């Protein structure tokens, strides 16, 4: 059975969680998104966010890492997915602050065979991230190519 055939709409997966320590937030941001509210506690206190918070690209990149780790552990799917043509409706509904612990999950919402690339399917998944209080901090609807034969 191909990886595409093994996916069922409605499948849900918990990808685990990640602690956004101040050190991790600043290290990512210094390299990729050095806005003051991501790299400097004192400046962040005076910003609209009120405290140091993670770059949205950090929140998204961590989701990717947890997803890869999950499927690397799961023999069932192996690493037979990817790459991705893109995503829709990415939302950062509230900041991820230092020491927040974000738990990520995904739910398959659609699958179809690629028209342009025979042998590949496209699986669409809604990803969400919630902090330790259960408040949503991240969501997106992403598409990924999956081997279909």
């Amino acid at each position, binding site marked *: 059975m191909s990886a595409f055939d093994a996916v069922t709409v409605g499948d849900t997966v918990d990808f685990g969680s990640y602690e956004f320590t101040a050190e991790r937030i600043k290290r990512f941001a210094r*390299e*990729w*998104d*050095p*806005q003051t*509210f991501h790299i400097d506690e004192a400046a962040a206190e005076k*910003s*609209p*966010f009120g405290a140091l918070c993670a*770059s*949205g*690209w950090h929140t*998204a*990149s*961590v989701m*990717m*890492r947890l997803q*890869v*780790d999950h499927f*690397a552990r799961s023999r069932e799917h192996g*690493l037979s997915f*990817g*790459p*991705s*043509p*893109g*995503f*829709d*409706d*990415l*939302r*950062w*509904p509230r*900041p991820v602050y230092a020491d927040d612990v974000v738990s990520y999950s995904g739910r398959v919402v659609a699958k179809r065979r690629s028209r342009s690339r025979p042998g590949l399917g496209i699986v669409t998944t809604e990803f969400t991230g919630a902090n330790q209080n259960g408040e949503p901090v991240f969501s*997106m609807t992403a598409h990924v190519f999956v081997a279909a034969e």
Partner: protein
Amino acid sequence: MRYFEDFAVGETIDHGSRDVTADDIVAFAAEYDPQPFHLDAGAPETKLTGGLIASGWHVAAIFMRLMCDSFLLDSACMGSPGIDTLKWLKPVRPGDRLSGRSTVTEVRASRSRPDRGVVRFRHELISRDGAVVMWMDNPVFFGRRL
């Protein structure tokens, strides 16, 4: 310092360029996206991708850094609610040079929060040969001159 009032629909801002090396690709992927086609040019999985390619999140992060250095760090940016759509159209490979640009597609003052407005951008990353390798539609909050 750019404020909300300093953006006009139709304006395009060039962000300069960045070269991408194999080491860059592997370093980002090792931390955030350790799939074989981002880590090892000799991995069998690169048959699907035609060789080592950068993580899409790496490509997005490269755009973000180019935009930061171009104007965002010297602006009244108040964060972003999200990305409406992002497309990774072409793979990014070692030796590529990526140029960033952003075109303002909408400018709208906030009704509920008079201290800010939303500027909507079409961001693009362009390869040396002029092809768009990634684009995204991104609303960003900017403070107003008060």
